[in-house]
């Protein structure tokens, strides 16, 4: 009965989304205002029902109810509880249910807390949100029902892909989903503003927390995904330009641009058309990414629920949503006036450069990801990898990061060169000194060399806005910006250092052999079998020592899961403040020696520390914006109340 209850809730939620769409959009027409009052309650109840439906599925997974097809296909009674729960969204149907759940909860939140926008724009926004959601409800109910029963339950489930049985990955997809869905909310705001011709600073302010939230989750999701690929795949790399990675990077690039242009629109009423454009693009990129990953149209190491029929469904949703939004934008282009003017040397000017560069990088990544698909139509097979992506993205990214270092020092609207000349000269000198120093002292490639110089400029430049300010009175949003920009510098430094200075050893070792890698020496002590709850493994004991330091014992494993049978490599990592030793155990050769791969990766962890700092910046900014809103609202109710008292007294 539990599964049927979940399905009923889902159908009811879909029906309420239909009501929300009709009430929201018809309520805009004169004579139909009566309907409009239904919009907010419909959004709220829909959120509740969808949440209940999702929790129902969680319960089914927790109890390993094998009469439900999805549970039987993706779970197993021997699996640890946390992975049973994460199995709920570790598959196509469950993840789509999570998607609509997050989406409807976001809709419910907008309906209950957003008070800044004109009521008509709110109605249109909620209507647009219901429209997008309905597409996904249809997808779930007609093409991927998560609650489908099996006529005869199997005795045991089919397990979960063991690669995905990892705590990092259990929370990586939902994090990205929250990001994607947040962008769908921004998209709804854009459509609402276009429908009612209200592309105003208030629209940007209402949309901004959602973009910030989405961007924050995407940042976390990408950082976690990169770390997962690094330690779980056993290849020692942190970014592969795989289509699946690009699918999450593209919405992030668009969201980063949108975040910055929304700030300009909110503060200065400029870049209206550009903000609208980015709002549409950011959501398109989430959908394009989902489509590329799910349809199996591109071959990827992450092969995930490949099904052309589902691909067709997502493609149809993509075409309908994006096609209609762009067409709406085109017909309303005349009403999205240009907004305020500004000079090139101004905060807006720097943000425009940032936006153009981010869009260019987005274009480069999109082209590289889709290029094999394009040539395949002409029967030519190519694969596009780091030799294209690394230099071509760097051409735009490195200058953009230089602008990032000085942009926040500039004033809005227009600034004088004389005022910012000295900080700019100082940053330029710093960059050149680092460039010359690294080039003289070591023999590194061009990209990491430039990376070091730009990282130094960004690290120092990002702190300059703090100069001369009272740190205790600095707005949280400004703190957020400083922390995020500083994180960019940290991450860039980590990337440059790892690329320039990592050392790798691939050896066949006997027990007792000592292997030198970078400043480390490692001695293979033993290899012995061990057993876990649903796997067995060969585990090596390797004593590693940094320089003359103390010995540490590490235990890399070659692990075999038995349901379904899969081999994974559990690498062991020894982390120091200045980098990581990465040890992976491979096969045994015929002569009894063990294949070992060791990397010394200087400062590689700084890449993810940087990612976390960027996300922390997002948290601070979001907190700052929300607290300011709450305070302002409280003040205005207070003023209204006093005015009311005064009127009564009069």
């Amino acid at each position, binding site marked *: 009965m539990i599964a049927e209850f979940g399905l009923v809730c889902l159908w009811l939620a879909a029906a309420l989304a239909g009501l929300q769409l009709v009430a929201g959009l018809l309520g805009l027409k004169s004579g139909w205002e009566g309907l409009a009052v239904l919009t907010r309650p419909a959004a709220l109840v829909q959120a509740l029902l969808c949440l209940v439906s999702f929790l129902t599925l969680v319960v089914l997974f927790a109890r390993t109810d094998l009469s439900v097809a999805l549970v039987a296909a993706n779970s197993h009674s021997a699996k640890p509880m946390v992975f049973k729960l994460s199995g709920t969204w570790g598959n196509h149907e469950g993840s789509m249910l999570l998607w609509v759940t997050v989406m409807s909860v976001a809709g419910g939140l907008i309906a209950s807390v957003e008070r800044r926008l004109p009521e008509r724009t709110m109605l249109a926004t909620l209507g647009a949100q219901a429209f997008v959601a309905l597409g996904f409800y249809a997808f779930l109910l007609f093409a991927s029902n998560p609650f489908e029963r099996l006529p005869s339950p199997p005795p045991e489930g089919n397990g979960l892909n063991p690669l995905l049985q990892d705590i990092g990955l259990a929370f990586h997809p939902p994090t990205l989903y929250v990001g994607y869905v947040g962008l769908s909310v921004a998209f709804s705001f854009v459509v609402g503003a276009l429908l009612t011709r209200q592309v105003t600073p208030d629209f940007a302010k209402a949309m901004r927390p959602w973009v910030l939230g989405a961007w924050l989750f995407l940042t976390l999701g990408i950082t976690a995904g990169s770390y997962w690929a690094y330690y779980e795949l056993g290849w020692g790399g942190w970014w592969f330009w795989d289509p699946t990675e690009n699918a999450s990077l593209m919405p992030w690039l668009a969201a980063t641009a949108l975040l910055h242009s929304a700030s300009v629109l909110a503060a200065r009423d400029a870049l209206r*058309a550009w903000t609208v454009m980015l709002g549409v693009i950011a959501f*398109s990129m989430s959908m394009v990414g989902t*489509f590329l990953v799910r*349809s*199996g*149209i591109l071959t990827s190491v992450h092969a995930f629920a490949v099904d*052309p029929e589902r*691909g*067709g469904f997502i*493609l149809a949703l*993509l*075409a309908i949503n*994006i*096609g209609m939004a*762009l*067409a709406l*934008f*085109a017909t309303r*282009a*005349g009403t*999205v*006036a240009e907004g305020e003017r500004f000079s090139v040397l101004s905060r807006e000017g720097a943000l425009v450069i940032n936006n153009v560069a981010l869009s260019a990088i987005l274009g480069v990544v999109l082209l590289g990801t*889709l290029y094999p*698909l*394009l040539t*395949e*139509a002409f029967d030519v*097979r190519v694969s596009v990898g780091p030799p294209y992506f690394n230099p071509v993205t760097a051409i735009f990214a490195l200058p953009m990061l230089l602008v990032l270092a000085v942009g926040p020092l500039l004033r809005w609207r227009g600034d004088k060169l004389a005022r910012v000349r000295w900080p700019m000269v100082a940053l330029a000198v710093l960059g050149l000194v680092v460039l010359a120093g690294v080039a003289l002292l070591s023999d590194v490639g061009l990209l990491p060399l430039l990376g070091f110089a730009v990282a130094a400029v960004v690290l120092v430049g990002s702190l300059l806005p703090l100069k001369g300010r009272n740190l205790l009175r600095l707005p949280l949003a400004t703190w957020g910006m400083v922390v995020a920009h500083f994180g960019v510098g940290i991450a860039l430094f980590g990337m440059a250092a790892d690329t320039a200075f990592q050392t790798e050893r691939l050896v066949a070792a006997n027990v007792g052999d000592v292997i030198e890698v970078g400043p480390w020496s490692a001695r293979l002590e033993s290899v012995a079998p061990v057993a876990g709850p649903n796997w067995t493994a060969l585990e090596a004991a390797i004593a590693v020592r940094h320089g003359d330091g103390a010995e540490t014992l590490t235990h890399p494993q070659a692990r075999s899961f038995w349901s379904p049978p899969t081999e994974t490599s559990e690498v062991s990592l020894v982390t120091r403040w200045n980098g990581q030793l990465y040890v992976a155990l491979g096969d045994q050769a015929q002569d009894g020696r063990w294949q070992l791969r060791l990397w010394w990766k200087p400062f590689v962890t700084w890449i993810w520390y940087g990612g976390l700092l960027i996300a922390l910046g997002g948290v601070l900014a979001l907190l700052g914006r929300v607290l300011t809103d709450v305070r302002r609202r409280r003040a205005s109710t207070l003023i209204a109340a006093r005015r009311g008292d005064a009127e009564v007294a009069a």
Partner: protein
Amino acid sequence: MNRLRLFLWGLVAACLALFGLFAYQLSQPKDEFIQSAMVGKTIPQFDLRPAIEGLPGLSSADLADGRPKLVNVFASWCIPCRVEAPQLDALQRGGAEIVAIAIRDRPEDLAQFFATYGNPFSAVGADDVSAVQLSIGSSGVPETFVVDGQGVIRYQHIGEIRPEHVPLLQAKLQEAGA
């Protein structure tokens, strides 16, 4: 504002074109096989020892003796190889000369395999580390190559030979000069 409008309609058109491409690619059957880049080229030099007693091994020189042949890449441990055995038999009875490369195999297993499924091969070379297999651009078992009398690879068939493939392979052999 006219320029913005023009740009936007252009973007709508570009998106539709892109979605069209997606739809087209989605409707295409996904081809998971990678054709060998060696088709049309001379087979690389190799000399494989006999994989089983009683039959000669295989070298690249054997493939340039003027008679076109089928080269079957197979293994006794490979399930689809069992499926294609009757078709190889039919081809051999139809007059085709078939030689084989046995991948990572053992003589006793091969003897068992031939006892059960018959042996259509006139020579079987042992490729213990897949070196020859990789050099001719074969990525799995079974695969069958048509090699002409000069030792040039003319055609590659990936996967097991099913009954409907027999005429095609015969035609390819004809083209190669049989």
